[in-house]
């Protein structure tokens, strides 16, 4: 029946959306380990730079410090890659689609799925997902910024050492500014998409709040 199919299709859409919420929540739950990985890599990078600075090790192409500096600059990048891989693993581990066999049974089964949903918890989950995703996006952008600063400094340092045989550093502020421009240029679309997702999550809370109130009123009328 066409009506049944339309309901099934719409409920499928709802359940798929809720599956996505599970994935967002996996991101929110994994924020702590992610922050540890990222924070650890940046702290290690800064500690190494401080050590080089304290011991006054002059960078130079033939100096082991140069190689050390190069390797140290890779640490935040490796940290970011590991953090993202960890997140991906957590998201991929989320079990989704367990409602599919039920929904294929028809209208009554869609009622069962809707009736079994804990709406309050679902709404809380969406809010948590939204918060977690926003924090994750900010952390990721921040780490990209640190990686960019490190990469630019390293590249500039290498060039000046090779061609001028001395280190000429314009300063962290300059590289910070350049890194912001590059990050905004490279990740601009990604930021926009993430912002739209956060808006969609916001709207979803309102939509589902309304539907859950209405669904409570559903009954067989004589």
């Amino acid at each position: 029946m066409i009506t049944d199919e339309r309901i099934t299709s719409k409920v499928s859409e709802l359940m798929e959306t809720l599956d996505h919420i599970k994935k967002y929540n996996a991101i929110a739950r994994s924020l702590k380990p992610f922050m540890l990985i990222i924070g650890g890599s940046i702290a290690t990078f800064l500690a190494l730079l401080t050590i080089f600075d304290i011991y006054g090790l002059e960078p130079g192409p033939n100096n082991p410090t140069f190689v050390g500096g190069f390797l140290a600059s890779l640490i935040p990048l490796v940290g970011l890659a590991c953090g993202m891989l960890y997140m991906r693993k957590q998201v991929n581990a989320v079990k989704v689609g367990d409602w599919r066999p039920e929904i294929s049974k028809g209208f009554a089964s869609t009622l069962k799925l809707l009736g079994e949903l804990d709406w309050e918890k679902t709404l809380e989950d969406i809010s948590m997902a939204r918060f977690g995703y926003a924090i994750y996006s900010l952390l990721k952008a921040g780490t990209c910024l640190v990686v960019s600063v490190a990469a630019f400094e390293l590249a500039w340092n290498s060039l000046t050492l090779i061609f001028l045989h001395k280190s000429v550093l314009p300063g962290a502020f300059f590289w910070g500014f350049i890194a912001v421009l590059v990050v905004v240029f490279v990740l601009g679309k990604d930021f926009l998409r993430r912002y739209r997702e956060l808006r969609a999550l916001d709207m979803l809370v309102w939509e589902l709040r309304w539907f859950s109130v209405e669904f409570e009123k559903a009954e067989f009328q004589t």
Partner: protein
Amino acid sequence: MSSSKKPNSKLDLYVIARIIEALKEKKNLNRTALATVTGLSYDRLVRYLSWMSEQGFVILDTEGIVHLTEEGRHAYEQLVQWILKHIGQLKFGRLEPRT
């Protein structure tokens, strides 16, 4: 729901819909067969049938066969339309978490 003799404190729409769907599909069934088809315990089914009979959705004849009435059919269609109307208004944005 206005009736005081609900099968449970909370009326399960799914169970009623399942009973009506089974009766629509298999036409007339006795209670044991209906319990098997719907996956309900016999006692639970009897409680639901009692309520549905009160509402005029089903009729139990003298041989214990359950018949779906026009009213039952109509109530089912109304609920389908009601759900479609409400769920049809939901809009889901494009969500695909990226890591």
